[in-house]
C-alpha cells in the first residue's frame, strides 16, 4: 500500500468516526428504533467508489470498532455489525453491477439492507414477532436516507476523483 493511499484511508476513517459521533449527538429524527440518517455511510460509499471493496471494508471495520470503543456498548456493536455487514455486502455488489457510476442507487440498496439487518437482529433479540410491523417504516426511511447520502457521495466524488487518483 502506497503511503499516499494509506494516508487517504486513514483520513477517511477519521472522517467517518467524526461524522458518526456528531450524528449520535443529534436527536433521533423519527422516534422509531432503527431509523437514522446514516451519514457515516457517505464515507463508506466514497471509499467503495474510489478504491474498491477491500479498502472500504477496512475503513468500515475500523470505524465500527473505534466507535464502539469510544462511545458504545457491546450490544450496539452487535446491531452495527449485523446491519453494517449486510449493508456493505449489498453495496459492494451494487457498485460492481453499476460499475461505480450510481452512488445514489448503491446507497439506497445499502440503506434498505442495513434496516433489514437491524430488524432481523431486533427480532432475534426481543423474540417478539410484532416488531416486524416496523419493516415498512424502516424500508421507506432506508430509501429516503439512502438517496440523500448517495447524493452527498456523488457531489463529493466529483471533486475527489480529481484530487485522489486511484492506486
Amino acid at each position, binding site marked *: 500500500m502506497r503511503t499516499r493511499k494509506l494516508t487517504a484511508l486513514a483520513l477517511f476513517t477519521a472522517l467517518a468516526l467524526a461524522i458518526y459521533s456528531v450524528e449520535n449527538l443529534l436527536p*433521533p429524527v423519527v422516534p*422509531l428504533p432503527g431509523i437514522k440518517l446514516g451519514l457515516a455511510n457517505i464515507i463508506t460509499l466514497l471509499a467503495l467508489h474510489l478504491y474498491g471493496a477491500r479498502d472500504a471494508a477496512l475503513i468500515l471495520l475500523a470505524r465500527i470498532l473505534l466507535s464502539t470503543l469510544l462511545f458504545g456498548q457491546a450490544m450496539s456493536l452487535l446491531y452495527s455489525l449485523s446491519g453494517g455487514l449486510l449493508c456493505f455486502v449489498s453495496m459492494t455488489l451494487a457498485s460492481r453491477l453499476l460499475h461505480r457510476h450510481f452512488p445514489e442507487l448503491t446507497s439506497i440498496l445499502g440503506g434498505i439492507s442495513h434496516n433489514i439487518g437491524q430488524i432481523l437482529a431486533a427480532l432475534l433479540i426481543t423474540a417478539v414477532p410484532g416488531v416486524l410491523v416496523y419493516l415498512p417504516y424502516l424500508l421507506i426511511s432506508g430509501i429516503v436516507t439512502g438517496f440523500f447520502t448517495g447524493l452527498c457521495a456523488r457531489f463529493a466524488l466529483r471533486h475527489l476523483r480529481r484530487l485522489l487518483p486511484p492506486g
Partner: protein
Amino acid sequence: MNTLSKRACLLAGGLTALLAVCVSVLWLRQRGAQNAATYTAYIYQNGRLLHSISLDQVTETYRFTVDAAGGGYNIVEVSPTGISIAEADCPDQICVLQGRVSDSLLPITCLPHRLVIELNPQVPAPTGSSPDAIVY
C-alpha cells in the same frame, strides 16, 4: 441505451415499486385500523410476557418500573387511553420519545432493554355462553 443505464433504470424502477408497496401497506394499515373499543397491553421482556393489562379496567393513571436483566429500568405509564414509557435509562431514549401509544399500529420497543409493549384490540368475551339477542 447501453447495458449500464439499463441496469440502473431497472434498479431504480424496482426501488420505486418497493417504495410504492411500502407506502400503500402503511396507508392500508392506517385505514384498516378501526378504533377498537378497548385494547389490551402486552408487555414483553426477552420475548417473555411480563404483564397483560386491559386498558378498560384502568381507571386512574399509574406507573410501574420494569427492571432490565443487565441493569437499567423502564418506567411504564398506564392510563385508560393508552400506554407509554415515561422514563428510562437506555442510551437512545427512543422508547420515551415515542410517547403514548393508544392503538395497535406500532408497538413501543426499547431494544437496549429488550422490552416490547404491544397493544392489541381486546377480543370480546366468547359469545357461545350468552345469546346474541333475545326476542320476546
